[in-house]
Structures are given as structure tokens and as C-alpha cells.
């Protein structure tokens, strides 16, 4: 059976990386990301949203910030997010879909919006945003995250970048007033109670905002927690939101071509491998820039001058046939990658490897006696199959036109078991 649409696209280098020396081989990209002779070079334009956040700081500063935030990603925290927050929220979001049943009795939804709703609350929990509870509030919050995401990835926007920044900064003021400000105020109050001896540390919320205000650094500017929160909100929801539609359409095609595998749609190990393939092929950040801190000669003999910016193109690197095999450009949930992470550079590399990666992919067992977690991608995919997800061949998904990102903008589905 043929493919229903083109699902594997090449990276179209956006204007901000054109003319810069770029690298597409897996080994060279890995070498640059691991090297201590480079610093972060991405997110120059999106400084108003991400400036001085974990994403944009390097070396000692990065280590200290990461160390501060690491407790949010401890095994126990990941287990809590998955079992106490994510799973009930997935069920809740699917239940809410039933309220919009069409006249023919079928429940229809947009997968992009549905996944964003599922992820909104979990990103609020890890960041420390209160009041994301009712459908109306969740919709408002989800909309803010989407808008902040547009600002935070302005380099990839097909719109005028100056206009995007100005528009989203204005929208951010609404977010601060409605969600962020009251959340900070409550946490600062609780921290004061703790410092006055009226609360124990265990009674404080375990989230980013609390951690930052509890361990305030005098070198930070007052707006830093807002930018760090923006990073958490955008990154924790966008990776999964980006990946699930790709995963669903690849599995749709896979099951058409391999009907014997259809029964594996509830098999979490199979879904995990499929999810890794989807994010390997469709990266939430398809390219990142690095700036050389000194003259560097790479192992292939290419020289990079001090201060020179280079682009690591993750999309072609993640399809490098020397690493992922001759069929690297295609989706194969049975692919074996013994020497590298199965998702390649989907979460970056080196010290800037995404701190929240384990939220998405799950955490492998840390000790000999535990089971680890499955992550947002697998849990959402399994729930969608239980809900009877189907793609309408007469109303196919479409890619976004607002960004150079390899992302769907519209993804109509029906949920036949609801």
C-alpha cells in the first residue's frame, strides 16, 4: 500500500544559518557539540525570551545552573510527573474530546492542539505555574505557551522577525499578569514562610520557580526566572507536541505496510522504539549554532577561527547512513543503533543536551531493581491508540507555513473508541 503523503522532508536551511560553515556528518557534529572549545551560538535573536537561561549559558555557569535544576529530573520526580500528573491529564484531555462529538457520532479533534493540551499542565507543574486547571484556563495557558514558543524560536519564523518579537513580548505581558506573576508571588510567600521557620523545605513546591527564588543568585537579573520559565514551558511541551503527529503518521503508514505489527500499537517497548525513530527523523531543533572560543582544527582537518560561528545540521546528521544504516532516511521501529542514542541529536549534545529529555523519552532503569519511566511520547501514543485514533485519508495533515521547522500545523484525527 502506498504512502498517504510525503512524510520525510529535507531540512531547508533558514536564512539565519545560510552562509555559515555547516556540518552534516554525525561524527563531526558530535565532535563540535562535545568540544569545550565552542560555546552556544544559537538563539541570538530570541534573547528577550531565552537570554541567560540554561539554554544559552556555557561551561561553569551552565554547570551551576544545571546543578540547581537537576533535582526536578530525579528519578522520583520523573515517576511522580508520569503517574500523578501526565497519565490523569492524558485521560482528562481525551474525556474532554467527547464533549465535542459530531452529529455523525464520531469524536474528531486536531492532534496538534490535543497534545498541547495534554502537555500544558505537566509543563506548568515542572515550571511552577498555578491555575492551569479548568478547560478555559488550560486553553488560555496553552495559547500563551504557543505564542512564547513562536518568540523563542523566532530565528525559524517565516514572518518578519522584529514584528514577531515585538508582538510576542506584548503577549508575554498578559502571561505574566494572568499566570506567571501570581505564581511567583505565591512561591515567594511560601519561601518567606520557610525562612521564618513556619514551613519545612519539604512543604515547598518542587518546581523551577521555587528553586530559583529559594536559591537566588545576586548576579541574576530580576527577569531571569521568567526567561528560564519560558524555556521550560516551551521546551517541555514543544518536543512532544512536535513529535507525536510525526509518530502517528509514521505508524499509520507502518501498520499499512506491516499489518502483522498492528497488534503492537499498545506495546510500550515497540512504541518507545517507534518514538525514538520519529524524533530522530523529525527534530524539534533541526540545527544549532556554536561559536569557536579559539582556533580549532576538527578531526577532518577543517579549521574554524576563533569567534567563527558554525552550524550543526541535525536533520542530515540524524540520517547519516554510516551511523543509522543504509535506510537511515526512512522510518524503521526495529532499527538498532548500538553505539549512539537512538534519537541521535534530537535533544542536542554535549553539555547542552536537553535537561528535560527524560520527560519525553522516559528514563531507563537507574538501578538493578527499578523499571524506569516511559515518558510523554509513549504514554500519549498508547492512549491515542486506545482511543482509536484514525487519520482521515480525505482530510490529510498539513505542515505549518509559519516556520521553517518540520512541523505539522494542522492534523485532523478521529477517535473512534471514544
Amino acid at each position: 500500500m502506498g504512502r498517504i503523503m510525503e512524510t520525510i522532508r529535507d531540512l531547508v536551511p533558514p536564512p539565519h544559518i545560510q552562509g555559515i560553515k555547516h556540518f552534516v556528518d554525525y561524527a563531526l557534529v558530535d565532535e563540535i557539540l562535545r568540544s569545550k572549545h565552542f560555546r552556544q551560538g544559537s538563539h541570538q535573536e530570541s534573547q528577550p525570551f531565552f537570554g541567560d537561561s540554561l539554554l544559552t549559558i556555557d561551561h561553569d555557569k551552565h554547570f551551576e545552573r544545571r546543578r540547581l535544576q537537576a533535582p526536578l529530573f530525579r528519578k522520583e520526580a520523573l515517576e511522580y510527573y508520569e503517574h500523578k500528573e501526565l497519565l490523569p491529564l492524558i485521560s482528562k484531555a481525551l474525556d474532554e474530546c467527547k464533549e465535542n462529538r459530531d452529529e455523525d457520532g464520531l469524536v474528531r479533534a486536531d492532534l496538534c492542539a490535543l497534545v498541547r493540551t495534554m502537555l500544558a499542565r505537566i509543563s506548568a507543574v515542572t515550571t511552577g505555574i498555578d491555575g492551569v486547571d479548568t478547560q478555559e484556563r488550560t486553553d488560555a495557558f496553552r495559547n500563551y505557551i504557543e505564542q512564547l514558543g513562536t518568540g523563542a524560536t523566532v530565528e525559524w519564523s517565516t514572518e518578519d522577525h522584529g514584528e514577531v518579537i515585538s508582538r510576542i513580548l506584548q503577549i508575554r505581558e498578559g502571561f505574566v499578569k494572568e499566570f506567571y506573576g501570581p505564581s511567583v508571588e505565591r512561591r515567594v510567600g511560601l519561601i518567606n514562610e520557610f525562612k521564618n521557620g513556619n514551613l519545612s523545605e519539604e512543604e515547598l513546591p518542587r518546581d523551577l520557580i521555587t528553586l530559583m527564588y529559594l536559591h537566588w543568585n545576586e548576579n541574576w537579573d530580576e527577569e531571569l526566572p521568567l526567561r528560564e520559565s519560558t524555556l521550560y514551558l516551551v521546551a517541555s511541551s514543544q518536543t512532544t507536541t512536535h513529535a507525536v503527529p510525526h509518530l502517528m503518521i509514521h505508524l499509520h503508514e507502518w501498520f499499512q505496510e506491516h499489518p502483522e505489527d498492528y497488534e503492537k500499537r499498545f506495546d510500550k517497548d515497540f512504541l518507545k522504539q517507534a518514538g525514538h525513530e520519529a524524533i530522530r527523523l523529525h527534530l524539534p531543533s533541526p540545527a544549532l549554532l556554536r561559536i569557536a572560543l579559539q582556533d580549532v582544527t576538527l578531526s577532518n582537518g577543517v579549521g574554524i577561527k576563533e569567534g567563527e560561528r558554525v552550524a550543526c545540521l541535525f536533520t542530515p546528521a540524524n540520517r547519516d547512513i554510516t551511523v543509522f544504516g543504509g535506510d537511515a532516511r526512512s522510518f524503521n521501529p526495529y532499527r538498532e543503533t548500538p553505539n549512539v542514542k537512538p534519537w541521535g541529536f534530537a535533544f542536542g549534545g554535549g553539555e547542552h543536551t536537553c535537561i528535560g529529555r527524560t520527560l519525553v523519552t522516559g528514563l531507563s532503569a537507574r538501578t538493578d531493581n527499578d523499571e524506569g519511566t516511559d515518558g510523554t511520547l509513549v504514554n500519549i501514543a498508547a492512549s491515542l491508540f486506545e482511543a482509536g485514533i484514525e487519520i482521515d485519508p480525505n482530510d490529510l495533515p498539513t505542515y505549518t507555513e509559519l516556520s521553517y521547522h518540520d512541523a505539522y500545523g494542522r492534523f485532523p484525527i478521529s477517535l473512534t473508541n471514544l
Partner: protein
Amino acid sequence: MNESKRFNLRIDQEICQGTGYCVRVAPELFVLDTSENAIVIVVDPTQDFENQIIEAATLCPTRAITY
């Protein structure tokens, strides 16, 4: 020293990115080798090192450490 429980400390060398974060938080247990990959120097540390081990494992950008 608590001898009742010992960890089985390991690093997946295929995914270690050599950031050296583990060495910073637990220099008694990890070092960077000549190719800047982290290696374990005490494979069965006692429970006294539990906090450092958990912090190193959580802080590792590629989560290459198990125990």
C-alpha cells in the same frame, strides 16, 4: 563507614559526552580519561556516597550513569 550496601556503579561509554559533571560532584568516584570520557574509579562505592551518586547520575546530560 557504612558497609551494609554497595552500589554497582557504571557508565555507558557509548553515550558519555565527557562533560565531566560527574567528576565535579564526585571526584572520589569518577575521573576523565585521556580521551575525555568519564570512567568509574570505585565500582562498588558504599552507601556513604549515595547522595553524590544520585546527583552525578541526575546531572549527567546523557544520563549515562547507572548504579
